């Protein structure tokens, strides 16, 4: 039974894990890079240790240093969060070897699910449906792949065996264009992952990205907590998630949930994990991959089920049985999460860095904000641009959308540009409201500019605001030049003078 948890992560997820630890009375150890001395997770934790310079490879990816800190601080468990070392089999193994509990699956399960080819073969053996594609995914040559392609059928996808994030992925419409695309996919995979191996998969058109949250304990119990709809993506990065999905009914949920449980059992899974599926228009679904960690979007599941997933993770890691059986899991209402990123939606989603000058978070009924930033905190270009997750709950999906609109308008972040206007526009989109979208919706059928055109416009208000701001600036500048000419009352003059000299 462990007493102190080292959180090998940063930002909002580190804060999220510290909160759960504190609620169950566990000690917490934060680690941080030089850029994160001011970060919230460092301030919230019981203990904090410096890892090294800002770049992740010199700090949050330094397994050796993290293990040293664990030993030095007497932490007897490690929570990896998501990203960084969360899906590194060698890190999980290093914890096991050092006699420290890794809050997550066994190294063997991370390994089995980490390699897409092995994962595919493993679940196929367990009778889980996969997207039709090359079965023998070892080292297939271009000739082998070209021979197999017509049997899979076009359009198809070339994917990197070690892939992720869309790297080394190519869409092939006809056999003629395939040789050139194979070359470029291999080249990209080689440079991104140091592994040029690729395989083929049928392209499922009009597909949704649906994932199931899985929980498994050491006593053989495996349950699912329902699905999350993650089709709202841009360049393979999720922007918004919701639960339940507007595309699922109770039957389909039960069916997919059972398959998800089976997939987890196939690798003797332990702790929290996520099974990703593609769902086509005819309700056919295919296993895509398994994420062997806590997900960014876990709060939407927490909100509709009332289950604290991180606390359950701690409980499972302590060797106890889960607090819930499958029949105890009930879903109430609908939850939506918007990822708030420091990027400018009006300027090609260009990353925006700088100091957060002010942050007014939305509150009120049914609103949750998971964040690691606060006024005075510096957003640096070293890490991922997500600065907060805004999660709302509503009795129905429509209520949740209305609440999200309200919350987005309340959210004020000053200092960096954010993608909040993108989410606001999405909330007004008829196709989003109708639940009519697939994974290509944002990139192919949603344009911020077009959507904004149809929105309620207030040109005169914008004109008044801009002019008043410009006028204010001219007045201030003039005041500095004409110091002796007091055009206002003495009190006002004193106020201006103080403002200038602050």
């Amino acid at each position, binding site marked *: 039974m462990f007493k102190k948890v080292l959180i090998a992560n940063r930002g909002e997820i580190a804060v999220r894990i510290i909160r759960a630890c504190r609620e169950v009375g566990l000690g917490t150890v934060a680690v941080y890079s030089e850029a994160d001395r001011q970060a919230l997770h460092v301030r919230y934790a019981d203990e904090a240790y410096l890892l090294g310079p800002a770049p992740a490879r010199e700090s949050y990816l330094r397994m050796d240093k993290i293990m040293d800190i664990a030993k030095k601080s007497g932490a007897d468990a490690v929570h990896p969060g998501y990203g960084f070392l969360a899906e590194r089999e060698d890190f999980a193994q290093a914890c096991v070897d050092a006699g420290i509990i890794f809050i997550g699956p066994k190294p063997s399960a991370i390994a089995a699910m980490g390699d897409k080819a092995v994962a595919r073969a493993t679940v196929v053996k367990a009778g889980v449906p996969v997207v039709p594609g090359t079965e023998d995914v070892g080292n297939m040559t271009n000739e082998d792949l070209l021979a197999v392609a017509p049997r899979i059928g076009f359009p198809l996808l070339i994917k990197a065996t070690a892939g992720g994030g869309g790297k080394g992925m190519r869409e092939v419409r006809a056999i003629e264009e395939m040789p050139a695309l194979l070359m470029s996919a291999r080249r990209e995979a080689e440079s991104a992952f140091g592994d040029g191996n690729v395989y083929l998969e049928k392209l499922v058109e009009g597909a949704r990205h649906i994932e199931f949250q899985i929980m498994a304990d050491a006593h053989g119990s495996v349950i699912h907590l329902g699905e999350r709809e993650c089709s709202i993506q841009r360049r393979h990065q999720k922007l918004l998630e919701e639960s339940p999905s507007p595309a699922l009914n109770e039957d389909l949920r039960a069916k997919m949930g059972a398959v998800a449980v089976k997939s987890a059992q196939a690798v003797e899974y332990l702790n929290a994990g996520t099974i990703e599926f593609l769902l086509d228009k005819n309700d056919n679904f295919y296993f895509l991959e398994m994420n062997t960690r806590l997900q960014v979007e876990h709060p939407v599941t927490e909100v509709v089920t009332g289950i604290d997933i991180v606390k359950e993770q701690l409980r499972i890691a302590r060797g106890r049985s889960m607090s819930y059986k499958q029949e105890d899991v009930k879903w109430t209402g609908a939850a939506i999460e918007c990822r708030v990123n420091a990027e400018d939606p*009006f300027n090609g989603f*260009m*990353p*925006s*860095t*700088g100091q957060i*000058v*002010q942050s007014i978070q939305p509150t009120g009924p049914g609103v949750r904000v998971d964040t690691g930033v606060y006024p005075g905190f510096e957003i*640096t*270009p070293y890490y991922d*641009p997500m600065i907060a997750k805004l999660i709302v709950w509503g009795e129905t999906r429509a209520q949740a959308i209305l609440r999200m609109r309200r919350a*987005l*308008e309340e959210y*004020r972040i*000053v200092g960096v540009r954010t993608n*909040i*206007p993108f989410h*606001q*526009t999405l909330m*007004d989109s008829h196709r989003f409201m109708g639940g009519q979208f697939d994974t290509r919706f944002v990139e192919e059928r949603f344009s911020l500019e077009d959507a*904004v055109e149809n*929105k*309620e*416009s*207030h*040109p*005169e*208000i*914008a*004109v*008044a*605001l*801009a*002019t*008043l*701001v*410009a*006028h*204010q600036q*001219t007045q201030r500048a003039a005041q500095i030049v004409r110091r002796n000419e007091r055009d206002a009352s003495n009190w006002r003059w004193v106020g201006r003078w103080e*403002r200038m000299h602050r």
Partner: protein
Amino acid sequence: MKYITSLDGKEYLVEILDDRRISVNGQIQEIDFVSVRGQPVHSLIMNGKSYESYVYETEEGLQVLLRGRLYNLTVEDEREKRLRATAGAGAGTSGEFNLKAPMPGLIVSIPVNEGDQVEKGQVLLILESMKMQNELKSPKNGTVARLRVKPGETVEQRQALLSVT
């Protein structure tokens, strides 16, 4: 004070009458305008309706972010407008190129030195942002001047990096 404010090619004549009243294209509007000091957040109550918005200054003018929509505006007073009209044609070809950071990032290397002769297309600077390395090239032949950054430094978007004269 009178201003000409342009939005989407349309001009509005705005007159600041006093603290409580402005006129937009001849229509008098009751206003109450408050700014949060040092921040681009402004609150405007106009004829009883309350609006809150961000107003950012850019090189081109002002950007107003209001209820999820971004407006690009320019504001000129009458004198500025007249000046611009007389300056008119022929301006803006000084021949000097000022390289600014197109995005925030880290300066990886600067393969040129101040005073170096460079050719069009030659790499001036390599900028890393969100794990991508970007080569910033010279758009003209000339001499490197006013090198303002060093390798290893982080820069903000639109920060001046160097000039080619």
